């Protein structure tokens, strides 16, 4: 099998460990980064939300307070005009009435208005006095028709050019006009001339109980300095900012409160991605967003996180802005730290991985090298000891592999030995089969000779038959002679039997004599034993007597005499013993000689018996010879036929031996091929190095 490329275990372990570590580090870093980013974003958003909510509440509170002030101011202003205002029809006055919204001018002539007899049309003493008292702005309106509206005839509201906004009128489309016409007091923010004010309008009722005009007090929303300062002071972060965008219809998108661009309309401003974010803010009123906003001064694009809230009472949208980079600076710091840590981890993993991979790969390498040697047939080298001494699976593997090498080595050794033995045995077998083959050939030749000999015998036996008749005649004569001799032998045998019986009687008589001598011998032995014991007793008595001194003197004499008697008894028994020995020897000699004579008689009798048996046999033979001549002829004939059968059998044997010769040749060739095979095996085993 072709291996396209090889990666060693060491590299695999190294790559694997580095990969795992890197992936783990990256995964952890990314998750941490994403999570931290999310947390930071949420925190920033919450921060900005807090800011906007705080400002919203602040503005609302401020507005309510301002509205209360305005309401109070209205009461004050109303005090000056209520019930004191009249129209002087006899002194009309002409104005170019300018719609405060459209700025369309329309000439109108209306009676002049007087308050407590003082003309107020185009006169500013009263409004200024009231203004001085209550602050803010005060205006006296006069109702006009054609067009319908409320014309400013005396006011402290100034135009942009600083002139008083006399001659401007609130059109009938204005909610202020509609509210006044309903004889109600309008309170709220309203657009006055060129700005929004927190206002209060109250109808001025004439003598005839008709609405002749309106008294107004108001505070410019944007002139609430404390609120303004407060809004501008609230920042999120070092580079965050807050500002207020005007959401009123005619002035939507104008920066009402801003640190540097108040009054600027930024409704159509777009961010770096082309998103009209201000328009989006004014559209959504409440929400948040991230925009890439170019700095209006430097032009640098910064990513900003915006949070905005709508204050409907004042028609404002309060925006809190945070610098995205500043918000996420901890995240970036964390990112950088993670990168450094990650690199360090990877380095550490590389070092550790290198160490372990080397540790693992060394033992694997050793085993691979041993396997190479085994492949080349070298079984002599073992696994290094230090590999087997490892306390891990590789150590176990090395140990078992070493065992495998040893077992294989032993097995090959045994196979080699067995092969050598087998080779020798096959060699012997080959030699033996060759010898058997040659012997079989010889036997085949010998059998063939036997066959020819048997054929000769067959012809010879036929000649024998012809001589048998002559033999029969001679046998009859022989029979007569033998009968005579037989009767003579019989008489002789009877005589010899008598002699034998007489001899046997003599022998038994001598034997009984010997038995009696044995009995005498036993008696003599007993007497001897008694004498011996008597002697000992006498000795003991003598001892006691000698120990007794004089008192035992007589006893000593008696003991001594008894001992002498015992001695003489012993000596007498010795003489008897000698005599018995002589008698026994004589009787033994007699028995021997008698037995020799008996032996001779027996031999003679046996010879005679044999002679009789021979004569008997001769007689039988003669009879047989005489009577069996014809049988012999028949037998000879049978023999002839038997010879023929033998001859046939021998021919079959010869054939069989020939077949055996063939098979031994086959055995020889088989053993030759076995020999070659064993030598091949031996050669195959020779290439293995075992030691």
């Amino acid at each position, binding site marked *: 099998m072709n291996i396209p490329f090889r990666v060693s275990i060491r590299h695999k372990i190294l790559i694997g460990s580095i990969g795992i570590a890197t992936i783990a580090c990256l995964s952890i870093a990314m998750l941490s980064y994403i999570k931290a980013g999310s947390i930071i974003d949420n925190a920033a958003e919450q921060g900005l939300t807090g800011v906007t909510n705080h400002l919203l509440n602040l503005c609302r509170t401020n507005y309510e307070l301002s509205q209360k002030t305005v309401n109070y101011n209205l009461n004050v202003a109303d005090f000056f005009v209520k019930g004191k205002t009249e129209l002087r029809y006899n002194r009309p006055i002409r104005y170019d009435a300018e719609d405060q919204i459209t700025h369309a001018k329309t000439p109108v002539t209306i009676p002049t208005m007087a308050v407590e007899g003082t003309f107020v049309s185009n006169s500013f003493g009263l409004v200024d006095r009231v203004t001085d008292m209550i602050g803010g702005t005060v205006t006296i309106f006069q109702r006009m028709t054609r067009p319908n509206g409320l014309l400013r005839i005396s006011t402290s509201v100034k135009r942009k050019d600083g002139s008083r906004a006399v001659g401007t009128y609130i059109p009938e489309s204005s909610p202020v006009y509609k509210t006044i016409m309903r004889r109600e007091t309008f309170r709220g923010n309203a657009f006055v001339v060129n700005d929004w004010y927190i206002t209060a309008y109250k109808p001025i009722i004439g003598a005839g109980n008709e609405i002749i005009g309106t008294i107004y007090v108001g505070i410019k929303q944007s002139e609430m300095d404390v609120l303004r300062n407060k809004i501008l002071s609230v920042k999120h972060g070092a580079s965050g900012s807050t500002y207020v965008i005007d959401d009123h219809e005619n002035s939507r998108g104008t920066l009402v409160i801003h640190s540097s661009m108040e009054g600027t309309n930024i409704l159509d401003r777009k961010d770096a991605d082309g998103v009209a974010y201000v328009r989006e803010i004014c559209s959504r009123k409440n929400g948040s967003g991230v925009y890439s906003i170019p700095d209006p001064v430097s032009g640098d694009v910064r990513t900003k996180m915006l949070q905005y809230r709508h204050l409907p009472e004042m028609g404002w949208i309060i925006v809190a802005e945070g610098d995205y980079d500043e918000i996420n600076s901890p995240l970036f710091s964390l990112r950088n730290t993670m990168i450094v840590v990650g690199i360090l981890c990877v380095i550490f993993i590389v070092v550790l991985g290198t160490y372990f991979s080397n540790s693992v790969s060394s033992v694997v390498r050793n085993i691979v090298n041993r396997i190479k040697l085994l492949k080349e047939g070298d079984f002599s080298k073992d696994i290094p000891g230090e590999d087997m001494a490892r306390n891990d699976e590789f150590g176990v593997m090395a140990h078992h592999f070493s065992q495998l090498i040893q077992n294989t080595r032993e097995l090959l050794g045994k196979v080699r030995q067995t092969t050598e033995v087998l080779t020798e045995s096959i060699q012997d077998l080959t030699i033996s089969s060759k010898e058997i083959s040659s012997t079989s050939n010889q036997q085949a030749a010998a059998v063939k000779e036997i066959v020819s000999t048997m054929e000769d015998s067959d012809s010879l036996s036929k000649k024998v038959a012809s001589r048998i008749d002559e033999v029969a005649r001679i046998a009859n004569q022989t029979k007569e002679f033998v009968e005579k001799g037989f009767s003579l032998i019989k008489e002789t045998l009877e005589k010899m039997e008598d002699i034998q019986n007489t001899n046997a009687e003599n022998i038994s008589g001598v034997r009984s004599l010997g038995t009696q001598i044995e009995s005498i011998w036993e008696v003599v032995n007993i007497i001897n034993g008694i004498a*011996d*014991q008597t*002697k*000992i007793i006498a*000795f*003991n008595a*003598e*001892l006691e007597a*000698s*120990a007794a*001194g*004089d008192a035992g*003197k007589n006893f000593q004499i008696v003991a001594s005499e008894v*001992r002498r008697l015992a001695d003489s008894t012993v000596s007498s028994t010795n003489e008897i013993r000698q005599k018995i020995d002589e008698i026994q020897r004589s009787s033994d000699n007699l028995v021997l000689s008698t037995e020799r004579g008996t032996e001779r008689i027996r031999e003679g009798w046996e010879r005679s018996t044999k002679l009789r048996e021979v004569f008997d046999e001769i007689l039988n033979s003669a009879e047989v010879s005489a009577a069996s001549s014809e049988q012999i002829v028949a037998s000879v004939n049978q023999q002839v036929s038997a010879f023929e059968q033998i001859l046939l059998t021998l021919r079959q044997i010869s054939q069989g031996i020939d077949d055996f010769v063939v098979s031994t040749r086959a055995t020889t060739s088989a053993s030759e091929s076995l020999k070659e095979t064993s030598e091949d095996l031996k050669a195959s085993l020779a290439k293995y190095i075992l030691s």
Partner: protein
Amino acid sequence: MYIMDNDELIAKLESSSGEGEDTLSVEEEIIHKLLIFQIDDRKYAVYADLVKEIVINHDLYFIPFVPPYITGLINRQGQPYTVFDLKMLFTNERLQASKVMIMKSDSDFIAFMITDVAEISGIPSSGINLVVSSETESTFIGSCNLRGEEIFIINVQEIYNRLANDLQNI
């Protein structure tokens, strides 16, 4: 051998009459009773007063851990005796015999295997040739001449001591 004439003989007889044969005056010789026994064909002697008795055909009980000249134990009237084979002791050959000569003793209880006893003979002191003492004690006390035959007298105590020494060395 003490040589005397007939007068001296008669005088001695008159002075010793009525006294025991063994009681002699100070200047008379002491007659020692010696028991003559045989070990195979050789004769040995031992002082008769040391011998308790002779027994025959007693069962011999083998004991191990003893020198080879100790054939075993016999039991005589409820008392075991250690039996010595003097032939083994003298010639290193085993004695085939059935008689045992038991010695008198209060504590030692030893016996000797012998072929036969011959006689108890009275030998005067002058007839006993004592062994000159040397550095070690001899197995024989001395020898005597009995009818022209030199007979060695066994030193029983020494044989006993020999056994004690040999047992210490085993």
